[in-house]
């Protein structure tokens, strides 16, 4: 099942920015030079053409990267809470609803903080998830939460402004609380087992490239992370 989030009209219907759009091809023909094409690709922050949605560079890029992940998580839990899997307990409903609200809060925070620098609402692809199955829902939640923790942990060193680093820190520990809870719901006691915590007692950290390739399977929208810092 693919879910379309609220996509602003100008981004959803802009054929010029669509990879399949005839108008794009015509448009490009008018500027039949590679330099012009490169200039177009470089100047549009919402370019959803072949290069994908450009996240931006430096701290803005990292904040958009986080915004993208929070959009994915919020969309997932919104769907979960709209129609809970069969056999859900009252305890699970309460906790998963809380998590949904936290992820929405994170998503909306980034949207507002980024303002005009924010990437558009993303289209998700949840066709691999069976929302009526506890195993499928909690299994996916575990993947998202562990991935989110590793993403924030890996992004810390890429952030320049200490205030943004602190904000990432405020969010990542909440994601880690979610991750532990979801893991405990699946298998009590697995909150920090050796599949996520190593012999030195360290959680995982992953660079954006690893995180985004794992997230790509759940996203219809393509993301362009080429501007993100690497160190």
């Amino acid at each position, binding site marked *: 099942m693919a879910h379309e989030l609220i996509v602003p009209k100008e981004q959803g219907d802009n054929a010029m920015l669509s990879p399949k759009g005839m108008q794009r091809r015509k448009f490009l023909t008018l500027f039949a030079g590679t330099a012009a094409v490169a200039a177009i690709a470089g100047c549009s922050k919402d370019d959803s053409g072949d290069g994908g949605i450009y996240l931006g560079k430096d701290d803005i890029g990292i904040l958009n990267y986080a915004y993208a992940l929070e959009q994915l998580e919020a969309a997932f839990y919104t769907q979960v809470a709209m129609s809970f899997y069969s056999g859900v307990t009252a305890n699970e409903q309460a906790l998963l609803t*809380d998590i949904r609200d936290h992820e929405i809060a994170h998503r909306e*925070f980034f949207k507002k903080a980024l303002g005009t620098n924010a990437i558009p609402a993303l289209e998700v692809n949840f066709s691999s998830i069976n929302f009526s199955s506890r195993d499928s829902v909690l299994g996916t939640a575990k993947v998202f939460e562990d991935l989110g923790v590793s993403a*924030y942990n890996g992004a810390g060193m890429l952030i320049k402004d200490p205030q943004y680093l*602190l904000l990432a820190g405020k*969010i990542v*520990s909440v994601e880690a609380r979610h*991750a*532990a809870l979801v893991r405990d719901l699946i298998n009590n006691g697995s*909150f920090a087992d050796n599949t996520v915590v190593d012999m030195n007692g360290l*959680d995982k950290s992953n660079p954006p490239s690893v995180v985004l390739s794992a997230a790509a399977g759940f996203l219809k929208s393509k993301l362009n992370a080429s501007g993100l810092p690497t160190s």
Partner: protein
Amino acid sequence: MNIHHIITELEKVDPEVYDRLDSRRAVMKSFAKFSGKLALAAVPLALGGMFKKAYGQSTGTILDVLQFALTLEHLEAEFYKKAAAAPNLVPAGPPAGAIATIRDHEVAHVKLLQDTITALQGTPGPMPVFDFSAGNGSNNGPFKNVFTDYDLFLAVAQTFEDTGVRAYKGQAGNLISNNDVLTAALNIHSVEARHASHIRSMRRARTNNSAIKPWITGKDTGGIGAAVQASYDGEELTKQANIEIVGINGTNISANAASESFDEPLTKDQVLAIVDPFIA
């Protein structure tokens, strides 16, 4: 990892690297000194620290943070070691398994921090004498039954974990110049949050109190009370970067959800005041 190769490569782009590093011999000697006993994970930290030093950034602040973190990890490691060894405290089965998991992580954190401090040419601080009754050494403080009363033990464990999360968060900015140390600290920070979540779930299940959640609501102590309030003060924040989270962008986000969504930092001084009663 081939240290010689890295130094040689660095020499190509920066011929003065040896002036910065004192001398090639000194560098190699310094590595040889600890490479045998150093945990593998600490080697990149050591390398990063060495270059930071060579290129003019002081390791003083970073060492201060690591020493502070070491004190907290000692506190947690000793606490769980004593709890796991206390007769008839932690029930066998899942509870004992969870406490053993957490204990092992805290012990590993102590070792990693000690190795990293050594690698950065510091001397790991000694383990303080602890008084887990919170009696400043009298062993007769408000938590004097912490190793015989299981619920009290879980309450103190929750407080230590939540405080630890806040303590690491408060130090992240001080580590921003050293990618390796910062990443290691973040990787510890999220493990402490996983611990906090699990201890809170244990308390939620035992007390059948749904107000105790894996996350922190407002500045609620989870029924523990005034003795630990300082560990939760400030968590009730609903504004982040001057943005109000309650009802943000037309959503129904409540004040509780807004506070739960973001964990808050504590300063070093705040944390030291919190742990002071636990140190003799």
